């Protein structure tokens, strides 16, 4: 067993976050093997900078930021061949709970442009706040909220086949 506190804590963090980092990266690159490689790279970078990470509460947001940077670095090196339909059937067959509940949504989510998919993943999957997402994406909280809002509207339109319902609005407070 690792004897020093830093190694022990690193191991605990790997066990706590590796799965969700994989899911996040999978949805960015749509390639399971590549997502696992990126998880490895992200943790290698995290370990290299481990001593600088002092805010224990922020470790999750920090890891997702590193993971996203790893994906972005790869994206800079080569244009990714992203096929939204790639291995979808195989993924659905391996779904976590009731695949029939999520099938259409998975297809729809995969079709969303990355600019909307990314903040939705960080909020819904990772549980990050708008402020943390803004820091991870290098943008403002307003921009994050706008992307989250547009992403959900687009998703609703894809799932329902029509724009999100908009019953009569009351504009007065």
């Amino acid at each position, binding site marked *: *067993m*690792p*004897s*020093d506190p*830093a*190694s*022990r804590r*690193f*191991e*605990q*963090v*790997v*066990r*706590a*976050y*590796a*799965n*969700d980092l*994989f*899911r996040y990266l*999978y*949805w960015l690159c749509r390639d399971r093997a590549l997502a*696992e490689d990126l998880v*490895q790279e992200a*943790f*290698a970078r995290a*370990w*290299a900078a481990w001593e600088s990470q002092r805010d224990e*509460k922020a470790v*999750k947001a920090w890891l997702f930021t590193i993971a996203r940077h790893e994906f972005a670095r790869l994206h800079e090196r080569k244009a990714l061949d992203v096929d939204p339909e790639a291995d979808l059937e195989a*993924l659905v067959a*391996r*779904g*976590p*709970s*009731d695949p029939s*509940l*999520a099938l259409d*949504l998975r297809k729809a*989510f995969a079709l969303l442009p990355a600019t909307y998919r990314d903040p939705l*993943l960080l*909020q*819904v*999957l*990772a*549980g990050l706040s*708008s402020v943390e997402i803004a820091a991870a994406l290098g943008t403002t909280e307003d921009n994050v*909220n706008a992307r*989250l*809002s547009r992403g*959900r*509207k687009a998703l*609703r339109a894809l799932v329902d086949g029509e724009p*999100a*319902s*908009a*019953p009569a*609005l*009351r*504009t007065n407070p």
Partner: protein
Amino acid sequence: MNCLDFRRAVLSDPRQADGERLAHAASCAACRVFAERQADLDNRLFDAMRVEVPDGLADRVLVAQGPRRRRTPWIWALAASVVLATGVALLVPPGLAGERLAREAAMHAEEEKESFRARQVAAPGFLQAVLADQGVRLAVSMGEVTYARLCPLAGNTARHIVITTPDGPVTLFLLPTDDQRRRRAEIATGGMTAIAMPAGRGSIAIVAANPELARALERALAQA
């Protein structure tokens, strides 16, 4: 807050339920329906995002990092990966972490009072599916699910579920991605009893006005 502000806020984060939003939802049926539909979509989205993870991923990460680690032989990391098969972050003592979750769960349930009035109809098999995802199952039926949405809780996205039983409502929070190692904790606060405990994956919190009802749900939850 008007309808436009309400809907903009819901689309930005359906998990939040602050006082202004709750007040508007209580007075505007159309916006209430809008929020419920969005919360349902987010529930399904959470499921859709959680694709299967390759077996042994964390172990492979630790082994790969082994030779680079400064003071720890890699074989120790491998051994630790076996010993700590279900280990999670030790950021605070487990007992304190459990109590903190119980307290946050009780506060959240208290703040989201509409959860007790709601009469949503969950899809058949919904509760079994989300419990299986958490690595637990319900050994005996407690009642019907009348409220289900995703909420932010203790730094995680939690499933907030209300089960209406013959003895009253009991609230269940499922945190399948919780990273904290939480020892069982039970607290009484604001007329509610809250229990936090580790689950098959992540953590669970239970909140009920009747302490016996909270404990009954705890007993009914078994490892899957």
